[in-house]
């Protein structure tokens, strides 16, 4: 909206035109408008509704769902600070205070002159370099409170007015030393980072029949690296066998599980391997179009990825008759998420790709049967595609030479928290937590969160357990917590994450995650009794059992895991009374007292 309160119809028409006015590209259209105007206000939605000829409620439904869509104008610089257990242990609170002092904006607010907006955000994918922030989409890792004043001054001087929220680089603040992120690839392994040779996988695949490709992937016992561990060969076969005019290949680059950043490492250091994998999948499935669903937090990877795609088009590795094979036509586009963890769940991801809010679908039908736009779709994790390319390049037998009986190959792990050497490690399946902790130099780990908040909390007595599908299964997030960390406070932070990220579709998760959070808070505030702990456990089990999708089903894990492994932490906080009210009546009536100007009648206190 310009200062006179007019709707910027040119921007809206341009965005609609760029995507052919297609309803299913609504996310791209909204992203485009948001990039230009910096927010999606009510007037914008109404004008867009008129232009697309769909009800404004439908657009509102999508726009209001995603946390990266601002609904009101923000400052010229929108600073999002990661607020996670790991960022907090590295001093995110101090960095936040420094930003408040230097910008004059409160958290959740905008500074008076309109230069800066400050917000907390969920994990930004830089857990090995916390505290971190995104400023207008550019990554700022490893912040110290002492850096903040200079950064803010330099930003203030930047007068790029071409864009409501100027993106880095391109503005004169791109010289700021931190506006890029290094990748701590501390443990390159034999499969994904073993040799620099690449492209051979695709060349080989071109000589194989689609069925032969699927057979090789099945033989390699490749399983999904995104968390669920579904056999990739079987997924591709199901998708291939579904009767349809066309099929889609989707790369899940949402990497939303707090504590993971290994997909970012792959997309940065070995994008060719990932794109090879997608193209091989396309050949196997008979797909003509692929999409990379990239989380909004990684928008800064876009330029390099686009370059990579262009290069492949020039080299005949994307486009028509790939590698000279008649009728093998395939191309890939990038589509962005907008800050919703649930969009990593494959069916929610597909909804988002189709321009809707990211609510999971009922299954069946499974995406392999009816996925993107109703066509059979293989949704696979970034790392899975990279592995598939290696399997074809080096053969299934070579691949099975790494790992365990049920878990072939290696796993990329993102390690963060209380350890001197956090970063990305590629390790063969079967590695024990003990070996892992030695590698990263963590000598006093009290517990390790394997698989992010939705995974498992593992205590010291279980450090002999192995990273493998048959033991500790993980998408790759490993967070280390030392002896000084509070297990219950950490469980509360994870529970808050789920309450924030619940899509709201089903009651057990929408209401349950908030109740779990409140019950845990009661215990932390020293008002919890034995009955409260029992009720909390029973509620946690109900939420796990009755929620509709993986988010709600795993949301109680931090609570159940910490109860199982650290009962003494709970016992230490329990009060001996049979019952304690959740709140103090005195505090709860203080506001009314000041409004109605008289005192408490007759309630006795505890």
């Amino acid at each position, binding site marked *: 909206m310009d200062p006179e309160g007019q709707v910027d119809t040119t921007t809206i028409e341009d965005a609609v035109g760029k995507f052919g006015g297609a309803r299913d590209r609504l996310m791209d259209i909204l992203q485009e408008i948001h990039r230009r105007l910096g927010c999606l206000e009510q007037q914008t939605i109404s004008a867009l509704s008129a232009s697309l000829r769909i009800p404004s409620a439908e657009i509102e439904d999508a726009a209001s769902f995603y946390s990266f869509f601002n609904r009101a104008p923000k400052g010229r610089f929108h600073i999002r600070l990661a607020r996670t257990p790991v960022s907090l242990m590295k001093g995110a609170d101090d960095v936040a205070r420094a930003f408040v002092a230097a910008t004059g904006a409160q958290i959740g607010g905008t500074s008076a002159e309109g230069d800066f907006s400050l917000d907390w955000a969920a994990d930004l994918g830089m857990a090995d370099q916390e505290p971190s922030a995104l400023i207008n989409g550019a990554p700022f890792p490893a912040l110290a409170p002492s850096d903040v004043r200079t950064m803010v001054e330099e930003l203030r001087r930047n007068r790029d007015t071409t864009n409501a929220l100027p993106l880095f680089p391109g503005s004169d603040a791109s010289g700021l030393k931190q506006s890029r992120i290094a990748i701590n690839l501390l443990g390159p392994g034999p499969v994904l980072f073993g040799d620099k040779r690449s492209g051979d996988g695709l060349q080989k695949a071109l000589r194989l029949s689609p069925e032969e490709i699927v057979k090789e992937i099945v033989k390699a016992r490749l399983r999904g690296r995104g968390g669920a561990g579904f056999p990739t060969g079987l997924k591709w076969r199901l998708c291939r066998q579904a009767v349809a005019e066309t099929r889609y290949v989707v790369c899940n680059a949402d990497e939303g599980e707090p504590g993971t950043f290994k997909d970012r490492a792959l997309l940065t250091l070995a994008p060719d391997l990932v794109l090879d994998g997608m193209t091989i999948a396309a050949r196997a499935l008979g797909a003509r179009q692929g999409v990379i669903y990239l989380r909004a937090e990684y928008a800064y990877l876009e330029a390099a990825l686009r370059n990579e795609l262009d290069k492949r088009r020039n080299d005949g590795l994307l486009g028509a008759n790939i590698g000279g094979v008649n009728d093998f036509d395939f191309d890939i586009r990038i589509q962005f998420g907008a800050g919703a963890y649930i969009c990593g769940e494959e069916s929610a991801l597909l909804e988002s790709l189709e321009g809707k809010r990211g609510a999971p679908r009922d299954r069946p039908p499974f995406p392999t049967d009816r996925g993107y736009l109703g066509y059979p779709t293989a949704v696979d994790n970034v790392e899975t595609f990279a592995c598939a390319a290696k399997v074809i390049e080096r053969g299934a037998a070579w691949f099975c030479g790494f790992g365990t009986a049920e878990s072939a190959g290696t796993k990329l792990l993102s390690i963060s928290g209380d350890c001197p050497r956090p970063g990305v490690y590629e390790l063969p399946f079967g590695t024990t937590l003990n070996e892992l902790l030695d590698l990263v130099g963590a000598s006093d780990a009290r517990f390790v969160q394997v698989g992010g908040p939705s995974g498992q909390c593992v205590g010291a007595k279980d450090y002999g357990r192995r990273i493998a599908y048959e033991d500790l299964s993980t998408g790759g997030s490993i967070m280390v917590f030392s002896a000084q960390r509070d297990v219950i406070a950490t469980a509360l932070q994870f529970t808050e994450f789920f309450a924030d990220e619940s899509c709201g579709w089903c009651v057990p998760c929408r209401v349950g995650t908030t109740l779990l959070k409140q019950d845990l808070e009661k215990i932390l505030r020293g008002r919890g009794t034995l*009955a409260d702990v029992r009720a909390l456990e029973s509620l946690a089990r109900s939420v796990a059992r009755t929620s509709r999708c993986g988010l709600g089903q795993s949301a109680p894990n931090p609570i159940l895991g910490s109860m199982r492994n650290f009962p003494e932490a709970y016992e230490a906080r329990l009060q001996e009374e*049979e*019952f304690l*009210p*959740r*709140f103090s*009546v005195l*505090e*709860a*009536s*203080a*506001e*009314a*007292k000041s*409004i*109605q*100007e*008289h005192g*408490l*009648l*007759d*309630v*006795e206190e505890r």
Partner: protein
Amino acid sequence: MAKPRLATCSLAGCFGCHMSLLDIDERLVELLDLVDLDKSPLTDKKEFDRPVDIGLVEGGCANDHNVHTLRQFRKNCRILVSVGACAITGGVPAMRNMIGLKECLEEAYITGPTIEGKGMIPNDEDLPLLLDRVYPSHEVVKIDYFLPGCPPSGEAIWFFLKALLTGREPDLPYRMLKYD
């Protein structure tokens, strides 16, 4: 042997749960054969003066007087039951939890479209003080049983009471817990 005593109260509720209790129709006669009705809006008895066996609570706590009444019920009733959505979750009155108390009172008494002239927020000292939010009963006192529904059907209330009075665990059948 003396009959068991039953008490009821309506806190931040609409009396719908009490209406539903009356909906057990001719079984009311049977109920009065089984229990003595003690403190209740139906008897208009003001204070507890002897121990009571079963207390039925309708409504959550919206003000300090609700809290007081609920605590009296807990003190005097052996078994305390949250009856209906309002007692169990806060229900309809808890819709104000989304809005600040001040904003809510100002809309009702000062700025709302039905206010004529200059309104004021009532401040008579005999009025109970509102709490910052509406709380479900079990966040204020220990509750022994929960009887869900808005309101629970007369049939469900009857089934529940009969079970308690005959010393059985009140396990409601699925059809009495299913609302659509």
